[in-house]
């Protein structure tokens, strides 16, 4: 900042601009969500039905669980590209342990996810390697582990209590949806009401400021990646139950949908700001986009193009250009 009396003036001008931009940013996810629902409802009579709503909930469960954890990581200014591989790894753990442990197979899956996240966090926070590079590496390495153990063949799940608990329905409501709802509530509370949640935003809003103010920034980063790993473990469990198996390809490319959910939900990749409710909307937007286009019979390749456009559009609206200064 300059050392002169002009500072206040510049700041107040910025804040006005920011306020105006802020309102559009704040409402963007909900506007997009409602618009998409309206378009698909107009195009397909099956879209706005209870049954389809439940399908969307089921489909969104895995994406949403991982995206909630990713929100913390991105708000703190980092990124995790390895989530798809962690989901595959934990789905494999759930599939292997389901035979003997039944429902409790979720515990080894969660544990392995936590460890995978912890490893990411340790290399990033303690080893001071950029999170992008760390998780690009573990994206490949964790997937390698899955391939090594499965030799490429799927591990099927036949344990009925496991399948019933994680993929079944009660009164037509998918259990996965209920589980995700509970997770979302917990994550919302952590983000908005705990010291840790405040620290996550502090680290993303100004890492240097946070360090100088005596926050344990390394610990925040470590916890972030570990929590995301745990959530990947839960997501892997849900995913394995949904497809009755763990496959070597499971979760491939998931990181892109996850990052898209977070960003479309109004959390910019620059960190510092963002919200849990935005990510929930973002995950539903991404899911509905696929669900609705499938229902309309849109060519899957075209679907990718549309998704790409939506992602760029979301960044275009939500990015705070004043804060970054230089766009790289």
């Amino acid at each position: 900042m300059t050392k002169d009396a002009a500072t206040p003036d510049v700041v107040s001008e910025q804040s006005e601009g920011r306020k105006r931009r802020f309102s559009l940013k704040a409402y963007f996810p909900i506007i997009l969500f409602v618009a998409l629902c309206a378009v698909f409802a107009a195009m397909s009579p099956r879209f706005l039905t209870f049954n389809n709503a439940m399908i969307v909930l089921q489909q969104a469960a895995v994406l949403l669980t991982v995206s909630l954890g990713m929100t913390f990581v991105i708000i703190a200014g980092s990124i995790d590209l390895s989530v798809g591989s962690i989901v595959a790894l934990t789905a494999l753990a759930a599939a292997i342990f389901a035979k003997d442990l039944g429902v409790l197979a979720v515990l080894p899956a969660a544990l392995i996810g936590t460890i995978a996240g912890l490893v990411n966090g340790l290399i990033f926070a303690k080893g001071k390697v950029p999170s992008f590079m760390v998780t690009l590496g573990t994206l490949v390495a964790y997937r390698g582990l899955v391939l090594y153990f499965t030799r490429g063949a799927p591990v099927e799940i036949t344990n009925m209590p496991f399948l019933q608990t994680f993929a079944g329905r009660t009164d037509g409501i998918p259990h996965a949806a209920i589980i995700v709802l509970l997770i979302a509530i917990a994550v919302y509370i952590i983000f908005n009401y705990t010291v840790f949640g405040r620290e996550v935003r502090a680290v993303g809003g100004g890492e240097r400021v946070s360090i100088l103010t005596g926050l344990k920034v390394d610990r925040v980063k470590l916890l972030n990646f570990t929590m995301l790993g745990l959530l990947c473990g839960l997501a892997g469990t849900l995913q394995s139950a949904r497809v009755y198996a763990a496959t070597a390809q499971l979760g491939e490319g998931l990181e892109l949908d996850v990052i898209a959910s977070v960003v479309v939900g109004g959390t910019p990749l620059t960190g510092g700001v963002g919200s849990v409710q935005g990510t929930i909307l973002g995950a539903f937007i991404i899911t509905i986009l696929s669900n609705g286009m499938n229902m309309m019979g849109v060519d899957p390749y075209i679907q990718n193009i549309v998704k790409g456009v939506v992602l760029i559009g979301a960044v275009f609206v939500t990015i705070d250009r004043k804060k970054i200064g230089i766009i790289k």
Partner: protein
Amino acid sequence: MRLQALQIHKSFGATKALVDVSFILEPGKVHALVGENGAGKSTLFKICAGAIPMDQGEMTISGKPYAPKSMQEAQAAGVALVFQEITINPSLDISENIFIDRMQKYAGPLGITRWKKLRQEAQRILDSIDAGISVDEPLSSLDLGRLKVLEVARALSYEPQVLLLDESTAYLSTREIETLFRAVDSLRNHDIAVGYISHHLDEIEKLADEITILKDGRWVGNYERGQLSNDEIENLMVGREIGKHIYPPTRQYAPEQEPILTLNAVAVPGQLYGIDLNLYRGEVLGIGGLQGGGGEALLSVLNGDVAPQSGTMRLGNREYRPRRPFDAWGAGIAYLPGERTREGLIMEFSVRENLTMAAIPRKGPMIDQAEEKRMVAELMPSLLIKAESPNVPCTALSGGNLQKVVLGKCIAAKPDILLLNNPTRGVDVGARMHIYDMIRRLAEQGVSVIMLSEDLPELIGNSDRIAILRRGKVSKIFDHDEFPSEEEIISYMI
């Protein structure tokens, strides 16, 4: 060309930076603008150069109305400004620094830069102001004064008719200032109208044809060369009543026997070479010195941001060896950094979130929201923070208020020792008084304050003792019963 700025008014929020100030520049004459820090000098220059708009007033160039909306417009009208901060890009060489935004002009066929022509032209400009700088010299060989001269050369390369030169923050040494003064002197021969802000009163007396004095944003007077003595200028500038008034009254203070913090031969390679220093309970220890003299490094060591290579520190009778700032805050040492927007505050955070950041009240893992509200309700009025509510983001606050928020953050941590790095940098006079008052109150409550400041009157006006650092060593400690002048302090800085 003649630049007239008449009855200029400018406010930043509630702060009146300029009230009814007039300033006239004549071609071929050097017109000095003097006044204390915060008197409004830089603001006036920025208005003249189109960097910020005025609220009220009238400007003309050669009699024609002049109202630049940007610095580019001002430049096109022939008005150039050299900022108080050094704006030389260290990764470019001398000629590139002068012509960086007009390199195309020197592009040959295929867009390849014609270096020879570029360098010749740069050298011509440098020689025309008697700079004594060769374009072949590496940038790193230039001292502060010659860097400033290089900036003058860059401003001249736009062929301005009016040149505004602000060197008010840099403490140039007598030798460094000579090069700059020679350059400014030669501008007269170019028939350029020069406006000049400097703190070097002795030299100004010799150089300037005319002097305008500002005090607290108001016009004090306009004088011809030789009309006033140095002392008279200083008196008008400071205005005994007001100038001293902003600092707390001198107090009876006798340090206790036992220091609470002891530094013994603390060294950081390239920055600190064996610092021995004691800090006593309830005192304000001022730290003076040139930039890079070791003051910043000393605060970084105390804050745990930089680990000393050797030496010991003791807090009371325990060894103090912070591995990171977390340890410093835990040991009761709070730190107010030098750059509030980059190091002190999270701008997206609300006033409340920033204030409690170093001491978030908790109930287990949860934030104790009721306690947080109570803390903020206590801090905001005691620091006179002006904000609509504690929940507005800090982007909505003025510089002075932002600095009070950073100070509030430190106070919220209830420290035993408070480290301040230029606590009033870029802060208006009103807020400065509040901050000084707060520092004194904390000291009276038993908090020990270490205040690093580049502002000498501030250092003298607030400190019980003053330690001067020079090239990483303590060159002098002025005790609580000594009252050094600015000149005395500077003599130990250089």
